[in-house]
């Protein structure tokens, strides 16, 4: 809201300079965003919070200044009305919930012309455009009192009457901006005997607009139900000075004085020849809030010790009626223009903001001992541990948007359109669905960096992905995505290309950190992954993630030339398998014996098959089976590979003898030869 410094001075004697006044208003809760000097005046741009519609008029702001400084506010004097001899117009409120009160009067014999300079200046100071004297007077009253008024050309109202009713379904009206609008049945309209002539509280109709040839007007001053006006304004996409104020609630008891104020100005400036008494229908009085303010309670909430006399003085400056009741209590009657003051706490706020937030002491709660139990939930501890673990492993954390485009999932990643959770009111096609996977985001990061010649990337993101339950209920799931690409920098002399085992190692190290031991990497094609380097990660029989090399087709979609290795894990499903507690096992008492074995096996025989067989053959005395060399080439037949294993044996209760271990060694050689056709060297 724009407020002119000079205009404010019409109602209150301000001694402060404009900038100082602006500071004081800001510190009392009417934030002055800027002060613009303009032709001897200063225009304050004030942010009026939605609870203070009374400050959407210059007079209300002047009252606020009175509240701050205790200066005397001058009353507004409506001129006396002469020639009150016209018949009162017939007015009917059909929708009593939509319109609480309607004051209408007829003014005849007017001359519509340009407004005098003082009025034009006032209108312009508020950033409005002058139109003609009638419209300008209604706008003047809106700006002065915060009460929107509307003037209809009375000769254009069929039947010379006003009906406040719901729009007929599909009823049409051309508003004064020249646009034809179709209304639904929930919109409140002002109608004559035949048709809607205004969208109540939002905008007038073209038909009954005041023009230069208008001779008689009907002046409307009304109270419309705020939520109804807000719905209409939002629904139609029209926000006006009027709708803005009606949405927030105008002063129901101020309708008549606003009407009188405008009528007297019209009589004066438009040389009206005759006027009617107002037709005043609906509720005339609001239910007055009578609030009991307990001083001890107020001081307790504020953590202050303000005297009762100070409380009373501040509230009186806001034009509230204050009566002391006993030592500790004030009885407050709230005027109708302060509908925001409903209970004790509302008054406490008034006190402290006018007393000065800067005078509130800074104390520390006496309640430091409340810190009961742990500082973090298990979920939070686990997420911190994952982040910490991956950072320790040299990965950079990224955060990408949780919303994405349909295309990035359907076209680039082959998701089905109907799997996607859509936003009802998207901002753009870039943010229209809730991500079901972190991969597009993380691939975007890879592409972004590669375009900037940053090609060695080790990154992860921990965040939610979003899904739909069968019933259609949306839900979210904590998800981890990791991507590696480029070179593995051992040192600045030697660089090697990253491969899938770098990534697998990271995931395994993370599992170790989280105390997960029973996991499997099942070689299996997974969506988005190159069929040759793809696995499903399984814990406790459940698929919880994927790991592999991204398919070339997917990478081409992002213009990424290098290989990218990715893993995506469903952290929510991993949670139950995580062990945060450490368990202690006694250190082994007896030494272990290590035997190496070199096998040549068919390519198709996997490490896990070999390890399983060894374990089966030798039982619990085998404590570790570690591959330490893998060779393919001239020395080995085509289609085969040579693997070296180091097998460690230990008994918990004695030192194993060479003979015992040799027995095991022979046994597993036999098993490996028989079952896997391995050649043992």
């Amino acid at each position: 809201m724009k407020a002119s410094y000079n205009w404010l001075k019409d109602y209150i004697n301000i001694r402060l300079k404009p900038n100082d006044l602006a500071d004081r208003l800001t510190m009392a809760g009417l934030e002055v965003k800027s002060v613009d000097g303009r032709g001897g005046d200063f225009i304050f741009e004030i942010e009026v919070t939605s609870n203070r519609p009374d400050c959407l008029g210059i007079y209300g702001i002047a009252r606020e200044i009175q509240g701050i400084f205790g200066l005397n506010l001058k009353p507004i004097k409506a001129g006396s009305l002469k020639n009150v001899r016209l018949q009162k117009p017939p007015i009917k409120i059909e929708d009593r919930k939509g319109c609480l009160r309607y004051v209408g009067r007829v003014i005849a014999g007017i001359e519509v012309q340009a407004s005098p300079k003082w009025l034009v200046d006032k209108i312009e100071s508020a950033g409005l455009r002058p139109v003609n004297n009638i419209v300008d007077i209604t706008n003047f009253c809106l700006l002065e009192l915060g009460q929107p008024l509307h003037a209809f050309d009375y000769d254009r109202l069929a039947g010379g009457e006003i009906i406040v009713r719901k729009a007929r379904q599909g009823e049409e009206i051309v508003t004064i901006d020249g646009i034809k609008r179709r209304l639904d049945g929930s919109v409140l309209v002002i109608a004559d005997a035949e048709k809607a002539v205004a969208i109540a509280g939002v905008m007038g109709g073209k038909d009954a607009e005041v023009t230069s040839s208008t001779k008689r007007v009907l002046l409307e001053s009304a109270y419309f139900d705020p939520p109804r006006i807000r719905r209409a304004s939002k629904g139609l996409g029209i926000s006006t000075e009027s709708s803005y104020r009606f949405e927030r609630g105008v002063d129901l008891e101020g309708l008549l004085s606003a009407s009188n104020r405008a009528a007297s100005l019209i009589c004066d400036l438009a040389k009206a020849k005759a006027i009617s008494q107002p037709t005043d229908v609906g509720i005339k009085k609001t239910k007055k809030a009578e609030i009991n303010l307990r001083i001890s309670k107020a001081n307790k909430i504020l953590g202050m010790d303000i005297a009762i006399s100070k409380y009373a003085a501040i509230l009186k400056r806001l034009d509230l009626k204050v009566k002391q009741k006993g030592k500790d209590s004030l009885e407050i009657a709230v005027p109708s223009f302060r509908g925001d003051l409903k209970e004790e706490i509302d008054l406490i706020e008034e006190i402290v903001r006018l007393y000065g937030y800067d005078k509130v002491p800074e104390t520390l709660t006496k309640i430091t001992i409340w810190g009961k139990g742990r500082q973090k939930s298990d979920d939070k501890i686990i997420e911190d541990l994952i982040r910490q673990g991956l950072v320790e492993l040299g990965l950079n954390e990224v955060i990408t948007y949780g919303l994405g485009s349909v295309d990035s999932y359907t076209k680039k990643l082959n998701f089905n359109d109907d799997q996607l959770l859509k936003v009802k009111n998207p901002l753009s096609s870039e943010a229209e669905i809730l991500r079901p996977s972190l991969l597009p985001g993380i691939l975007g990061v890879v592409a972004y960096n590669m375009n900037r010649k940053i090609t060695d990337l080790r990154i992860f993101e921990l965040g939610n992905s979003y899904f739909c339950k069968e019933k259609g209920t949306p839900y979210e799931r904590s998800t981890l995505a990791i991507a590696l690409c480029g070179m593995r920098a051992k040192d600045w002399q030697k660089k090697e290309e990253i491969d899938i085992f770098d990534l697998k190692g990271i995931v395994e190290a993370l599992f170790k950190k989280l105390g997960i031991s029973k996991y499997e990497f099942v070689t299996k094609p997974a969506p988005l992954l190159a069929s040759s380097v793809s696995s499903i990660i399984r814990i406790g029989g459940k698929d919880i993630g994927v790991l592999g090399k991204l398919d070339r087709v997917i990478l081409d979609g992002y213009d990424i030339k290098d290989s990218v290795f990715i893993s995506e894990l469903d952290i929510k499903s991993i949670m139950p398998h995580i062990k945060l507690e450490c368990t202690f096992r006694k250190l082994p008492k007896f030494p272990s014996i290590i035997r190496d074995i070199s096998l040549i096996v068919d390519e198709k025989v996997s490490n896990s098959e070999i390890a399983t067989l060894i374990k089966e053959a030798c039982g619990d005395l085998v404590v570790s089976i570690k591959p330490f060399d893998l060779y393919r080439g001239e020395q080995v037949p085509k289609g085969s590979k040579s693997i070296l294993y180091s097998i460690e044996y230990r008994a918990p209760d004695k030192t194993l003898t060479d003979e015992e271990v040799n027995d095991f060694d022979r046994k597993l050689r036999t098993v490996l030869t028989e079952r896997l056709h391995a050649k043992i060297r």
Partner: protein
Amino acid sequence: MLDRIKSVEAEAQNEISKASDLRALDNLRIRYLGRRGLIAELFKQVANLPNEARPKTGSELNSLKGKIEGLLKTRQVALSKGSILSEEVVDLTLPGFKPPIGTRHPIINTIDKICEIFLGMGFKIVEGPEVETEFYNFEALNIPLDHPSRDMFDTFYIKGEYLLRSHTSPVQIRFMEEEKPPFKIVVPGKVYRPDAVDASHSFMFHQVEGLVVGKDVTFADLKGALKVFVKEYFGEKVRMRFRPHYFPFTEPSAEVDISCIICGGSGCSVCGRKGWLEILGCGMVHLGVFRAVKYNPEEITGYAFGMGVERIAMLKYGISDIRLFFENDMRFLEQFK
């Protein structure tokens, strides 16, 4: 000849003691003890001596050979202890082999730093869902349908009553429904609002919310706790002020400004020449919120506050474009540890 032996001994002693590395020492070994070395030369000359002088000179030479061997050995041990690398020339101005160092995202980093200060004051961390309902995001927080206060919270709607939370405050409600006062919690998290992306807006950002409820929790306590936060996070010199404001879920409400950390309060482009920077919103928990979770406002009071993490981080590090956080340029991320 015997003089010559003495001078060679002195020379060897001097040179060996000066040998600075194993390579130099090896050269000396060749020079003195090699097949064509000095000692070998001297032995050759013994043959030319008169018969009676030969045994003495021979034994002197043998003893010299032994001494030099001893000196070489001692020096070698000394050099080896001093540096195992001294066999080669090492240029230690070359870079070391750095193991990869990862970084947490600056936003996560900032969240942790903010939370840490409150954890120190006895708060605990609580989190809640990003997919929320009308009830938790609005109604229970005293933001009724069709009320202008909703303008402060533009929201992405999903379907039915579901939406993406536009602030972390719904967690207040979820927590109070489950727990009884007294408590002190901080709530970090991701929020969404339909704002077109530019240098200062993002449709996704992060907040940290705080809530303290108990007997006798005062507005002055709120000021005290936030003062601690401001001083810890932004530094001792920074001043803080409370400015009255309106939020539907607190009353009295305040916006909190700190003296501009760039200009110190004299006015610059960062603070719009005002000398103050707005950093968070706060207030005493609104009675309507307590009623929604069936707390009795006559028995308890509480305060709440909420801040935008990106804004705090941008002010702290002097970052002027919010998009940097979500572009994830490694050269940006790696500046934060």
